[in-house]
């Protein structure tokens, strides 16, 4: 059988299928279905230094083959994450990765430092899609300079592999990915959600309490594949690809485009067992095409 373990910087995953931050809670919510150690890795809900209340409801709107969300990063904050959420995973085998956000570089640094002592974390994912409050509230991730600065600052203090999660709401994804690489990222993950909006035409009101939200699900997949493909030409570090992956076929599209591993979010809502089905499907595809390793299809797009 083909070898499907992959390397994300120094981190070895037993398979390339992971679940995306914000869609799998703090790692315990889906325990009734299957043990998370069957997944390559679990990206935990994004955390901030202080707890966040989140956005005004409604926070969810379904859209064609996808959904908008405006959760507003509701989370328990660093302290309870360390005191309650991470210890709850102590007896849960699996590869867990923290996802961190902040209003300024200093906050990212403080969180990264505090997480150095967490025993059950395998890596850090740095979410640069959040607004930079010191720079007028524009997302860090739209600026190559800010992305490099944050990456470098986190890299300098963290003992963990650093994955930088890129925002797709940019003109040139390659430029931002190169900035993350220059800052010392071990890998980049993309895409986060696309900024969108939906309106209830009868009520003439926005569907979301926050007016706008992040679009995810199959609707964004072709854009995500394009961005992963472009990024793979721009950087040498591994890419974690995501955006609307629902089936093994979808996942293989991302591998061919250059992703070393993939993540699933919205599709897990439709079917919590979908990641396990995809792992099986990938093995089947590799066998059918007589490959010995998943690496034989990574970036194997033919011109």
């Amino acid at each position, binding site marked *: 059988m083909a070898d499907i373990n992959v390397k994300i910087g120094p981190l070895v995953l037993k398979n390339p299928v992971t679940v995306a931050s914000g869609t799998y809670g703090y790692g315990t*919510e889906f325990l*009734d279905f299957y043990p998370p150690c069957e997944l390559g890795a679990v990206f935990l809900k994004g955390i901030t230094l202080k707890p966040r209340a989140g956005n005004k409801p409604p926070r969810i709107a379904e859209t064609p083959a996808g959904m908008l969300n405006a959760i507003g990063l509701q989370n328990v904050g660093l302290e309870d994450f360390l005191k309650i959420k991470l210890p709850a995973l102590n007896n849960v085998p699996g590869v867990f990765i923290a996802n961190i956000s902040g209003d300024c570089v200093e906050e990212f640094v403080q969180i990264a430092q505090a997480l150095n002592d967490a025993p059950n974390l395998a890596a850090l994912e740095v979410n640069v899609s959040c607004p930079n409050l010191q720079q007028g509230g524009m997302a860090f991730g739209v600026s190559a300079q800010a992305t490099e600065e944050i990456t470098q600052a986190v890299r300098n203090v963290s003992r963990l592999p650093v994955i930088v999660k890129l925002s797709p709401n940019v003109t040139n994804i390659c430029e931002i990915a190169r900035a993350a690489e220059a800052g010392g990222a071990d890998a980049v993950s993309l895409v986060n959600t696309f900024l969108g909006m939906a309106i209830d035409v009868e009520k003439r009101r926005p569907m979301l309490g926050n007016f706008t939200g992040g679009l995810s699900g199959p609707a964004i997949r072709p854009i995500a594949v394009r961005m992963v493909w472009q990024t793979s030409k721009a950087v040498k570090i591994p890419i974690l690809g995501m955006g609307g992956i629902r089936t093994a076929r979808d996942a293989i599209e991302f591998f061919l485009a250059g992703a070393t591993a993939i993540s699933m979010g919205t599709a897990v809502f439709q079917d919590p067992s979908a990641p396990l089905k995809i792992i099986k499907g990938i093995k089947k595809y590799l066998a059918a095409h007589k490959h010995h390793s998943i690496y034989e299809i990574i970036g194997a797009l033919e011109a």
Partner: protein
Amino acid sequence: MKQVLARIIDVNFFESDYVSLTFKSPEIVAEAQPGQFVNIRVSEGPHPILRRPISIFDADEEAVCILFKVVGEGTRLLSEVRKGDYLDVIGPIGHPFKIEPAPALLVAGGAGIAPLHFLGRRLRESGFDVHLIYGVRTRKEAVAAIDLVRVSTRLTIVTEDGSLGERGLATDFINKKTLGDRAVYACGPEPMLAALQTKLAAMGKSAQFSLESRMACGAGACQGCAIATQSGYQRVCADGPVFDSDKILKWSDGA
């Protein structure tokens, strides 16, 4: 909470676009309690991607019955399943009603009858007196719940147009006399619950409300189904769907 492929053993269509489905799932039945719901996959393909949350209307030894109103694409797809088909169901989900050792007043509006039907049955089985006030638009809508007499000791049907039972809104029939020392349980559209909340508060009472919210994960993971309560935003799927009426701060529709 389990994810099961459950075989449909019965389908019934009623007026006003109501449909009832009965599926076999001993796993879900074993844990099911009134107020809990199931989350159902409505399409094989990429759209609609989200499951639809539906309350447990009834459960016997091995089957679960749901009753829903077709209001959009998801419920329309769900109304197309037939006897013998398999349904991908996750459940039971959420905190159930806490059964108070007292006579009960159940207040249902429209499709909100579903969790109260199951509750009424369990209350009756435990020997409690159950007065059910069921508000619907017209006589046609009440047909879906024809067997409500079985789960209540006293049934007051209220129609907006007076075509059956009393005329008015369910909340018009909440007063000192109907309330007595009864424990109150309610489910229905937000305007009804908001009115009931105000009315009960004025009388120094509270109730257990089963709430609805748009959901994504239905498992407590995404924080998408939040409602504003006195203890901050809470998840309808994992912290609810049953909440104490005096804890609810704001209704999402601004009612």
